[in-house]
């Protein structure tokens, strides 16, 4: 079974549309994350939730809204998509939110905004 799974794997959409990416982990972890990896492979954290509570909210446009219905799921909804949103989005999870936690990543969702 895949430990951290995210869907869809590929997402192609038009500018201005709204889309969602889903993430689920079956590791029993308390903390989940969303990262954005740009075309230069630079990986930047966007959000983190610990037991359904938002603990990290980096400088991200408010068009991006995460939702954690339970600690095994963290979804990302994006409104009014822009060309610059094209990237690979990774979900990850870790046992806790403290320092030294190893993170487990999903396979990524490649978002292309046309």
């Amino acid at each position, binding site marked *: 079974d895949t430990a951290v799974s995210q869907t869809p794997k590929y997402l192609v959409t038009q500018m201005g549309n709204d889309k969602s990416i889903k993430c689920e982990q079956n590791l029993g972890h308390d903390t989940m994350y969303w990262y954005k990896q740009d075309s*230069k*492979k630079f990986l930047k954290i966007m959000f983190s939730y610990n037991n359904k509570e938002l603990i990290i909210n980096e400088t991200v446009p408010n068009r991006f809204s995460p939702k954690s219905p339970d600690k095994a799921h963290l979804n990302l909804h994006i409104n009014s998509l822009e060309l610059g949103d094209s990237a690979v989005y*990774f979900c990850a999870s870790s046992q806790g939110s403290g320092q*030294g936690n*190893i*993170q487990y990543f999903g396979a990524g969702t490649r978002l292309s905004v046309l």
Partner: protein
Amino acid sequence: SQQGEEDPQALSIQEGENATMNCSYKTSINNLQWYRQNSGRGLVHLILIRSNEREKHSGRLRVTLDTSKKSSSLLITASRAADTASYFCATTPQGAQKLVFGQGTRLTINP
């Protein structure tokens, strides 16, 4: 600003040779991790080294940490074609709850 910076950005070697990648960071840290990313896949954790450790081994991997120079190195010995991937260092700055990644070193092992 970016915390970790890997050097070189790209490295191409022959199978069987050793590969060394370096990472520099800017602020004090509690630990440093290395991750591997195969093309089109997510990141996979390789090794974690704490700030009070100087060297750590895991199989063919050897990681060093020099907190006075704010740098770390990852050595892969006896490289294999399957080691072809991007390698990222990630730090947890003191007082922070997040990992900050560098831009990675793209390693190519030629058969």
